[in-house]
């Protein structure tokens, strides 16, 4: 048990005015008032006649049912299930009696409503349990008062309060009303992991039924009386901007209401770090139906002109950053040539231990290898979209976004409103992967609604979505390693950069495990916009570092797992440097677990194995992938075994699902993913050219194992993903006899001989 100071719990008792006046809630319609035909799980359970709002995360009905509000938006990680599980655990209620709704956006009450960076569970772990424990304490005190007994004599289980000595029992619903009058406890006691009944016991996705029955739940499904449809056209290439347009034809087409230009940010608006946007001047078509608007959009006659070099200042987490945007129409060929050139020049040294230069000169063996990867598009399956209704009184917006707090200011500024007049509803998202942290499309929707003076849903076509920017950058990395005559790794050098950002983590493994170590970086500006993409930077560095270490192990004549464990042993016992960002024993732990579970070392004819392990986003991951060749020689991952250490696992089956998805995504992007440019335009605009992994290319079996410990949980959205590329590269080497250095592997062809 742990004592928890209850600041979070107390903040939770600022009852949310959006929920209902006076704390008493009647009915169940407030969330769904503009979505007809919404069938909720609630209709299956017998609904309470009255709801008592215990705090802003929780209301209890007179019949004992509880509704728990999930504070963070959902895009598939299962936070709508796992976060309420944390509240329910400490509340001591039966999970079957819990309904879940997404909370309204209100940062003052709910804090950081941001799903991203694998930080959701980690940052909510104490707060949500405290909320549940506080409510339980208030219910207990209410019962104690009613029975006239000391509160310490009351126990709780499955939504029932019991006073053993007198044999009295009360359901939570029976004291919920009285509990509302109890003072919020100053301090509460949280359970120890051994006492958990809900946490660490798999619960099914609370939205599962709505999903499989096709209920409206995504932003693109948002229904609103009288809503018009809007689409926006951005320049066809990076480095271009709007010059002029002729909308005569479009305006005369059936169902079209208006065609006009919008400018996303006013000139004096100071962008924040998530206001990334190359295309701020857009031509908008508004009409009655999607098909009519799509057709009119195609008929627009628009002239574009080249941009000039420009600069703007952005607020980068409280610091001013100058962002330089070069003019020009860029191409992938030129990017790769530039990266090769920069890789051959000295970079900015970000860490140096010992004397790497000296050791490389005298070492018995030196190996150097270079790796590249292309830009990637997030390709969320639900294209970007947002609903907005802007009136004199204020703005009501709804749609898919990972962090309303990051865009609220831009919306308010663009509409000339104060933030308190902007109401943002978070809908379920059809994928996020980082893309929806950049919600420029919500600003656009607001401006469009204001201009046409009507409710509007802005929808991106797939092509709009894929070509708008905010991509995973293109990177290059060169690694060097030196071995002594006993095949010990004595020096390690990484130099990496990208367009337009560096992927280097100076203090990450094998930093700390090698006496002589150096990390260098470089960057090259671009007008192609980038953004966070599932495990930013790690999504390249993990794969190439782990592929390189495999090659070093081979050169040293050592088993790849033994070789890594040897290095980690050094990092545990006698680490080099002080800022190493990983815990060596936990990284070794997942390697050992995956070694045991995969039966590593057992030779299986026709099965080619590769291993990789990586730490990022506070979590440890290791994978063994088995590649098998099909009848036509095509390699495919037959089997994947994964070991994770993310501390306590809140919802194990859903956590496995996340890891399975991360592995499939890793195989897919390493094998097929890639966005290439010519004259500033992407050469892929839809799924006919942009290849996404499909059923017959995905691993057939995936096994996920978690290290069992009682460490506070960390995230899983990102960590399983990055090392997959390394394990795949290493397995493909075994299968093909040729190392792969350039992603996507499908186009990394052997050099032509002759």
């Amino acid at each position, binding site marked *: 048990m742990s004592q928890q100071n209850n600041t979070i719990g107390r903040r939770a008792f600022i009852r949310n005015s959006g929920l209902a006046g006076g704390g008493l809630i009647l009915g169940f319609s407030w969330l769904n008032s503009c979505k*007809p*035909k919404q069938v909720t799980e609630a209709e299956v359970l017998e609904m309470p006649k009255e709801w008592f709002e215990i705090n802003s995360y929780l209301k209890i009905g007179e019949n004992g049912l509880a509704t728990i509000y999930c504070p963070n938006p959902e*895009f*598939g*990680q*299962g936070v709508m299930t796992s976060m309420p599980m944390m509240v329910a655990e400490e509340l001591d209620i039966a999970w079957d009696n819990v309904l879940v709704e997404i909370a309204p956006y209100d940062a003052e009450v709910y804090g950081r409503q941001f799903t991203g960076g694998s930080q959701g569970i980690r940052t909510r772990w104490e707060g949500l349990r405290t909320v549940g424990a506080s409510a339980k304490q208030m219910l207990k005190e209410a019962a104690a008062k009613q029975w006239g007994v000391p509160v310490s004599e009351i126990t709780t289980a499955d939504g029932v309060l019991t006073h053993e000595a007198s044999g009295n029992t009360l359901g939570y619903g029976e004291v919920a009303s009285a509990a509302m009058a109890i003072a919020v406890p100053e301090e509460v006691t949280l359970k120890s992991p051994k006492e958990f009944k809900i946490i660490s016991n798999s619960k*099914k*996705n609370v*939205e*599962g*039924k709505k*999903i*499989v*029955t*096709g*209920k*409206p*739940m*995504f932003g*693109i*499904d948002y*229904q609103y009386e009288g809503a018009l449809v809007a689409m926006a056209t951005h320049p066809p290439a990076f480095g271009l901007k709007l010059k002029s347009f002729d909308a005569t034809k479009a305006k005369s087409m*059936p169902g079209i209401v208006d065609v006009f230009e919008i400018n996303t940010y006013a000139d004096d608006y100071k962008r924040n770090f998530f206001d990334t946007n190359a295309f701020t001047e857009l031509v908008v078509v508004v009409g009655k*139906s*999607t*098909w*009519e608007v799509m057709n009119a959009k195609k008929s627009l006659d628009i002239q574009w002109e080249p941009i000039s070099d420009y600069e703007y200042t952005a607020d980068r987490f409280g610091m001013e950053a100058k962002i330089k945007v070069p003019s020009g129409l860029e191409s992938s060929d030129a990017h790769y040539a530039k990266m090769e050139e920069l890789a051959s020049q000295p970079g900015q040294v970000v860490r140096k231990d010992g004397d790497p230069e000296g050791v490389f000169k005298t070492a018995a063996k030196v190996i150097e290898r270079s790796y590249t990867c292309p830009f990637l598009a997030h*390709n*969320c*399956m*639900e294209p970007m979209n947002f609903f907005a209704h802007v009136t004199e009184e204020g703005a009501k917006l709804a749609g898919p976004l990972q962090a309303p707090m990051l865009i609220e200011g831009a919306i308010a500024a663009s509409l000339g409103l104060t933030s308190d007049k902007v109401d943002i509803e978070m809908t*379920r*998202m*059809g*994928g996020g*992967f980082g893309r929806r942290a950049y919600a420029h499309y919500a600003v656009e929707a607001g401006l469009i609604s204001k201009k046409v003076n009507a409710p509007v849903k802005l*929808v991106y076509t*797939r092509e709009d979505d894929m070509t708008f920017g905010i991509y995973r950058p293109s990177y290059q990395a060169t690694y060097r390693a030196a071995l002594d005559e006993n095949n010990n790794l004595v020096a390690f050098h990484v130099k990496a950069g990208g367009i337009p950002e560096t992927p280097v983590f100076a203090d990450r493994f094998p930093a700390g495990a090698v006496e002589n170590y150096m990390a260098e970086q470089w960057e090259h500006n671009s007008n192609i916009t980038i953004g966070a993409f599932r495990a930013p930077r790690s999504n390249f560095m993990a794969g190439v570092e782990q592929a390189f270490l495999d090659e070093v192990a081979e050169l040293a004549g050592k088993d790849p797992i033994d070789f890594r464990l040897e290095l980690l042993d050094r990092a545990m016992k006698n680490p080099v440097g002080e800022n190493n960002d990983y815990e060596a024993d936990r990284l070794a732990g997942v390697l050992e677990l995956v070694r045991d579970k995969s039966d590593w070392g057992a030779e299986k004819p026709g099965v080619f194995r590769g291993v990789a392990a990586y730490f990022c986003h506070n979590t440890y991951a290791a994978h063994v992938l088995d590649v098998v060749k099909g009848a036509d020689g095509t390699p495919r991952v037959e089997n994947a075994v994964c070991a994770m250490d993310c501390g306590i696992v809140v919802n194990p089956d*859903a956590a496995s*699902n*996340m890891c*399975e*998805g*991360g*592995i*499939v*995504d890793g195989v*897919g992007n390493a094998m097929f993913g890639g966005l290439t440019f010519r004259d500033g335009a992407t050469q892929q605009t*839809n*799924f*006919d050219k942009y290849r*996404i*992994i*499909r*059923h*017959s290319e*995905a691993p*057939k*079996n*995936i096994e996920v194992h978690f290290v069992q410990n009682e460490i506070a949980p960390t995230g899983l959205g990102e960590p399983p993903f990055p090392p997959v590329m390394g394990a795949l590269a290493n397995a493909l080497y075994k299968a093909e006899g040729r190392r792969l250095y350039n992603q996507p592997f499908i186009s990394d062809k052997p050099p032509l001989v002759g």
Partner: protein
Amino acid sequence: MATFNLNINGKVKQVDVDPATPILWVLRDHLQLVGTKYGCGIAQCGACTVHLDGTATRSCMLTVSMVGNSEITTIEGLSEDGSHPVQKAWMEVDVPQCGYRQAGQIMTASALLDKNPNPSDEEIEMAMNGNICRCGTYTRIKKAVKLAANS
């Protein structure tokens, strides 16, 4: 504009639309049946899959004028309460992550099982290859199809 009488989920629905309108947008915009999803608009992703006389069909490339008297079934018509064996299997295996494409996956899977009640792994992969899942739930989808086949 023209008037069409469509057989959708066992009911006749009248719409007045441009004859070139894809069924996807007729369903979503005119009939408020939004379970059928837009993903690519060029028959590459499978999000918009419906049954046309029992066959899994991409509704984004199927114009309203092509449908005639054929029966269209959407996810909303498979069962309203999630009682169809494929929907049940999907919940049992807890397939979805983001869930956006699952309606399309379920429609393809249910059409497959109607024709081939006991598909092999390879047959499942072949039938489901046109349905992208960006979250990567393919192994669970296969598990769920097999579970539904056995129920």
